[in-house]
């Protein structure tokens, strides 16, 4: 559809315009406000009389000694995002494939149960998980010790296990979303492709690798890209399960720094600059990922 007529153009813009008007109406002003703020000295002492000071805040983001160390937190955020996304997608697609088999009965019930983690209010569920990780009374340790005879784990007391605990919680919260997307994506695959493959005697792995994965990709890639962005910036779960960074501020993401800078220490300029840094990290990721996955192009064109 390259040579578009005038009517086609009008139709096209009618399709695109409403969504973009809503979106940009809401986003543009805060976005530019933030850029200006990131170049300013707005903080507790200059809340109304702030002025532009250039790149000072950006320099501070990278050079200021921080507790915990900025680069360690950056690394943790990357690990957090990658591990979460890996399990969200893996479990989501896996369960969708299992649910999509025509021989399974009671699909509706399984679907309803498996979507629960997405449907339950997050705050109370995060605190429940925190309770489940308690050393003496948490159900996870009670199960380990009473049922399996294993020693209990001091989940929230050590940095690594606490980090694992928050990841487990978030994997639990996130897999249903990917499962729903994958279920939808699987419907776009024509049955005859599988039938043809069966006639050729193809293995399940061959079918997965050469039919399923390539064909669910157009639908999964946007979910994965945005899932990555959301997970990278998801403060709530880590904050709630680790009780604001326990043990000893070891369980933090980069956004915790933004939150603390703005709300605990009233350093708005610094917070804005750090937001910009996070923004550029995510922009770089999205550009690379989309290029690799050809997400902006139509598969059939």
């Amino acid at each position: 559809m390259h040579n578009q007529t005038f009517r086609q153009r009008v139709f096209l813009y009618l399709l695109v315009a409403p969504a973009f008007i809503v979106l940009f109406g809401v986003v543009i002003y805060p976005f530019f406000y933030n850029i200006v703020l990131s170049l300013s000295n707005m903080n507790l002492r200059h809340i109304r009389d702030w002025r532009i000071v250039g790149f000072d805040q950006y320099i501070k983001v990278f050079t200021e000694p921080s507790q915990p160390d900025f680069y360690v937190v950056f690394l943790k955020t990357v690990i957090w995002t990658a591990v979460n996304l890996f399990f969200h997608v893996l479990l989501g697609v896996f369960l969708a494939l299992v649910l999509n088999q025509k021989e399974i009965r009671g699909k509706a019930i399984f679907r309803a149960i498996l979507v629960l983690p997405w449907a339950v209010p997050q705050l109370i569920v995060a605190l429940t998980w925190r309770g489940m990780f308690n050393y003496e009374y948490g159900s996870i340790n009670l199960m380990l010790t009473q049922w399996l005879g294993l020693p209990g784990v001091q989940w929230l007391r050590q940095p690594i296990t606490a980090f694992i605990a928050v990841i487990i919680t978030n994997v639990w919260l996130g897999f249903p979303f990917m499962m729903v997307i994958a279920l939808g994506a699987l419907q776009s695959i024509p049955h005859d492709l599988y039938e043809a493959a069966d006639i050729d005697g193809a293995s399940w792995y061959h079918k997965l690798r050469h039919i399923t994965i390539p064909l669910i990709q157009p639908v999964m890639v946007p979910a994965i890209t945005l899932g990555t962005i959301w997970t990278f910036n998801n403060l709530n779960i880590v904050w709630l399960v680790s009780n604001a960074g326990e043990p000893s501020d070891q369980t933090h993401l980069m956004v915790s720094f933004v939150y603390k800078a703005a709300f605990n220490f009233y350093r708005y300029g610094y917070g804005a600059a750090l937001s910009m840094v996070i923004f550029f990290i995510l922009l770089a990721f999205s550009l690379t990922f989309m290029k690799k996955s050809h997400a902006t192009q139509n598969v059939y064109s």
Partner: protein
Amino acid sequence: MKLQTSLRALYALAVAGCIVAASVSMDGCVFKRDPRIRLTIWHQDRIDVRIVLQRQLDRFMQLHPEVRVEQLFKETEELRSGFIIAALAGQGPEIVYGPSDQVGPFEMMHIILPLEDIFSKEWLALIDPRGLTWYKGHLYQVADKLGNHLTLVYNKKLVPVPPTTEEELVRIGKSLTADLNGDGKIDRYGLTWNYTEPFFFIPFMTGFGGWIMDDAGRPTLNSRGTVDGLKFIKRLRDVERIIPNEADYNVADILFKDGNAGMIINGDWSWAGYQNAGLDIGVAPLPKITTTGLWCAPMVSPKGFSLNSNISGEKKTWALELVRFLMSPENQMESARELFTMPTNLQVQQSDFVQQNDIMRNSRLQIDRGRPLPVVPELRAIWDAMRPSYQAVLAGTMTPEQAAEEMQALALRRIKEMNE
């Protein structure tokens, strides 16, 4: 094909719904005109306080039908950041209610009004001076309640007589701590509290002679008080073994509620809840540390009203009227009776109830032994600096001496960052 048809119908419905709904929300946007003057109070109080407040507001509105007052609960952090954001945009509630430490940052941002010229001297003289929060030469908050203080709460069934010294505390604690069902795990502890938060560490710090900052607002965390306080907590857990291995607020709360802990260190906000859970509780001042001869002193904070600097004219007049009304002896008395909060009105403080009720008497004793919560905005930096090292000591990855040093260094750095 049937599916297709119904899908199309669904889509048409969605489009129609979209249009209808948009128009309806337009209507909602034009706010129902209420001729009354509207006042809003933001606070961070729990439900039983809200119920008493609502009763008092209803009475106020009955007296003054031309005013409509609404109370809005906000969680601590959100109240603060939300008020800052709203006030900077020229909006926000007329009255903001809370502990005195919000005065520091609000004053720095010029978003609350100085009150010393607005209220008369005679009226201010009726209030306990500890309920008036002055900062940088101006009065910014008038409080109707004193407290927010930690005390020792004990289950009378398990602890007939509360301890008065740390050695008694250990002795009673040891007699209570037991493995009742013989599974090799302790299932009743002598004492518990939320020991992930530095706020709950303050009484131990003060009991051993420490404090968080000097009069100029400089942190004084690297002190004997910090080190000995930390050592004492470690002793309770690892040597005497009378407190659980790991407890945050919710764990400590449930242990005490279920009768699995004889005593808990908790604030005045918690008493009513324990009574409602059917416990026969007693409230006692925190014990004395015999080696120093000092009482464990919690932080004490007034809770009171500040006025948004964006208000003027009629609204300001009514907001003042409302504050005076809520601060009246009758209303303070009502709160004290129902919530066990300490009134600030000097006359109410002398009433029979406050003087003679067992909980009120002990609460008052604890307040008199407590230390006022600092108002300066740097307090945030100090909490933030204490938390990681304090937790590290409990996790066994840092010695108390190292922790005290780390806290001090981090506090200094944070304060410098805040004020650059």
